[in-house]
């Protein structure tokens, strides 16, 4: 192998040096924002590379060829360029911009690479003579409310002014003020904390105001924010919090809670009192002693550990609920629903997505369509109005399904069963109470654990009916296959051929017992002993 010799490039060295100087000057606030320029204009590199190839083609009359190394290089370039673009536009970019880093004891703000801003802090205190609700207004910045002294409202404001010139930034910061004072009269009186952003609206200032407000620990607080996060912790009293486009969090509070957040995530942790949430964003609720109501759309809702009732409305996303002591109501069309560990009942309306319900102490009442649902360990009765679903039940107290085009599979049902469906199969096993199944155009397979006192009735139109009974079972049967045949495994209980393709069977086995009625219009009927299906499977 021959080593290729490259001549050191003077131009290349100068280019790299020049680039370093530009970035260095930028770090001292001199010159344009090269990172932002690179973030926006990096695809020009791809265009230039492509143009270079085309020029090569015409100059050298060679076919346009792309080498493996070039493909890797271009992919690498696209990856790096995309990452820079995303970083400058995203929340990560914002965090990065505001991140303080200390290098050699000197604070360096990487954010200056993306644009110049100056931060100023100020603190004000206002005395309170009597317990007064506190109202906080802000926009384009965060609001954090925490407990402070009983006799005062303390406000810490962080002003971030986006301005190249530091002295001008300082002037603007001096104009940005936080104002505090009583508003309203008599009983409606409250203490208002707000910035003077409205008064500065006519001026072309770009700034953010982050407020940290310390209020008496037992007080009513109302926050109206937009384009900024809201966080409240460790307070006792009624809270009404509104924001948009950013996070909202309440944790470790006692009182009554009303929260509204559009286009931002919301989180509620360890609250005592009723909670009402109006959201258009992801919602997480955890450890609440009180009733919870959540209204959302298009975003996931996750709720855990509620000692109270729960009502959730959502659409086109998902709802996840775990451990709720009192009744739960979920209306979530087009959403995936996962529910577990309920101390009371569940009422559910949903469609088109997967549903999983488990461990419910009371009954489940559901209206479902076009979905696949699994319900396990339901102590009470499962009452389902269904359209074109695939329903699976395991360990259910009782079952009532009124359906169209729905397939039903159930095992271990301890109470009465009543199922009506069309076009799809019904398969029931290990039940021990009365059972009534009607399925038009679908097969019916029944395999009771024991025969109880209740009647077993299966009626089909075009599908077959198969009934598997314990070998020693005592029962009374009436079976009609008007256009089909009947097969029986029970000695002394043989079907009569009432005509061509028409079978009937009636009689008692042993001393008789629960009544069994099987009726099929066009399908066959099989009366089998339990275990015969396994034997058949083995022989097959």
């Amino acid at each position, binding site marked *: 192998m021959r080593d290729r010799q490259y001549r050191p490039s003077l*131009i290349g060295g100068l*280019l790299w040096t020049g680039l370093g100087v530009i970035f260095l000057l930028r770090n001292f606030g001199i010159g344009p924002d090269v990172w932002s320029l690179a973030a926006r204009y990096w695809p020009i590199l791809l265009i230039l590379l492509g143009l270079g190839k085309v020029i090569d083609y015409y100059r050298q009359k060679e076919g346009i060829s792309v080498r493996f190394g070039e493909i890797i290089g271009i992919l690498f370039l696209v990856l790096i360029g995309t990452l820079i673009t995303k970083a400058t536009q995203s929340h990560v970019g914002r965090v990065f911009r505001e991140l303080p880093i200390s290098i050699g004891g000197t604070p360096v703000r990487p954010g200056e690479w993306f644009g110049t*801003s100056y931060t100023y802090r100020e603190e004000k205190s206002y005395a309170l003579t009597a317990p007064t609700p506190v109202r906080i207004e802000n926009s384009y910045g965060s609001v954090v409310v925490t407990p402070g002294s009983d006799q005062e409202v303390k406000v810490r404001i962080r002003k971030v002014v986006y301005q190249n010139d530091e002295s001008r930034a300082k002037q603007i910061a001096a104009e940005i003020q936080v104002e505090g004072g009583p508003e309203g009269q008599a009983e409606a009186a409250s203490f208002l904390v707000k910035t003077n952003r409205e008064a500065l609206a006519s001026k072309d200032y770009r700034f953010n105001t982050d407020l940290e407000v310390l209020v008496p620990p037992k007080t009513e607080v109302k926050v109206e924010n937009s384009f900024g996060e809201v966080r409240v912790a460790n307070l006792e009293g009624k809270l009404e919090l509104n924001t948009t486009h950013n996070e909202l969090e309440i944790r470790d509070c006692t009182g009554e809670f009303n929260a509204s957040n559009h286009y931002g995530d919301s989180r509620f942790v360890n609250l005592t009192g009723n909670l009402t949430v109006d959201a258009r964003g992801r919602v997480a609720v955890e450890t609440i002693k009180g009733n919870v109501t959540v209204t959302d759309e298009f975003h996931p809702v996750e709720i855990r550990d509620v000692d109270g009732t729960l009502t959730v409305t959502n659409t086109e996303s998902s709802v996840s609920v775990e451990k709720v002591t009192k009744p739960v109501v979920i209306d979530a069309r087009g959403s995936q629903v996962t529910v577990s560990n309920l101390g009371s009942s569940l009422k559910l309306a949903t469609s088109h997505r997967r549903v999983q319900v488990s461990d419910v102490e009371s009954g489940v009442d559901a209206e479902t369509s076009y979905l696949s649902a699994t319900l396990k360990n339901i102590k009470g009765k499962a009452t389902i109005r269904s359209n074109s679903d695939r329903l699976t039940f395991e360990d259910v107290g009782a079952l009532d399904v009124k359906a169209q085009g729905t397939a039903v599979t159930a095992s271990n049902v301890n109470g009465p069963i009543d199922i009506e469906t069309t076009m799809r199969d019904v398969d029931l096993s290990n039940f021990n109470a009365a059972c009534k199944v009607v399925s038009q155009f679908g097969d019916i397979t029944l395999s009771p654990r024991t025969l109880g006192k209740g009647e077993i009735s299966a009626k089909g139109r075009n599908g077959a009916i198969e009934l598997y009974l314990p070998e020693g079972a005592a029962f009374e049967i009436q079976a009609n296959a008007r256009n089909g045949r009947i097969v029986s495994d029970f000695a002394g209980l043989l079907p009569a051929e009432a005509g061509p393709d028409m079978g009937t069977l009636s009689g008692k086995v042993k001393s008789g017992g629960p009544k069994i009625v099987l009726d099929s219009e066009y399908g066959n009927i099989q009366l089998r002993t339990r275990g015969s299906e396994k034997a058949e499977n083995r022989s097959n």
Partner: protein
Amino acid sequence: MRKALWSLPAILLLLPFAGCDFEERVPAEVVSITKSQPLGAEKELQADIRFDVGSLEVAAEKGALAYTVDLDYDKASYQDVITYDQSGGTGRLNFRLESLHKLGLRSDRHPNRLRLGLTNTLPVKLAINTGVGDARLSLTGLQLSSLDIESGVGGARISSYEPNQVSCDRIRIRNGVGSLDAVGLANLRFNDLEFEGGVGGANLDFTGEWQRDAEIKIQVGVGGVSVKMPRGIGVKVEGQKNFLSGFHLDGFTMRDSFYYSEGYDDAKIRVSVRVVTGVGGFKISWI
């Protein structure tokens, strides 16, 4: 490749001087508008929406308002045009978000967002044209009398979970580059539905409450089209396979150059599907 790598610092070096008069990158100045129109003597509503860049949501609005608009956009780059007039019993909402076509790094960019609420008390003729961005059309609860959607680059989702209170004479959906999911289309109670596929794939779910026979025309684009039909509906398909596209019809038999679903002759509701195949595949499955 080595030359290309050397040219990288050169281009980066030139970039700062190429733009000349760039501003510093500062937080986007976001315009946040909430607008609505009380209902008057309108007997129907026509909404014509053009939203070039951003995220769009449409939903039914309860109450005595013809429409509500919740709009955020970047003031440096866009300008809104919202007009509403009412004459002859028809309210006409016209919405545009126009780009100002400014170049340079003026500010940090803020994603545009529009949430449009339309009255659930009047018949609505809805025309939507989206450019770059995602669209969610939650049509449940609307009285939709016609629907025309043209989606550009980005995903679109259309859903209807309850039967439309009025019949929808015509639905036209044109899909662009992104994927399109439509769920519960039968609930819209349409006579004719025309779908034109683009580069992105499409899932058309015709579940819901079928109340009448209907005609569907599907033009498959580069992305495939997957159709879901509820059992019990009689479906007749007219279309031909070509060597480029897959043509998967689950449970159909061919008669007289048409494909018929099982039980078509006895079906209470019959749907005729005319398919023009493209590069992508076409599939019908049952739910």
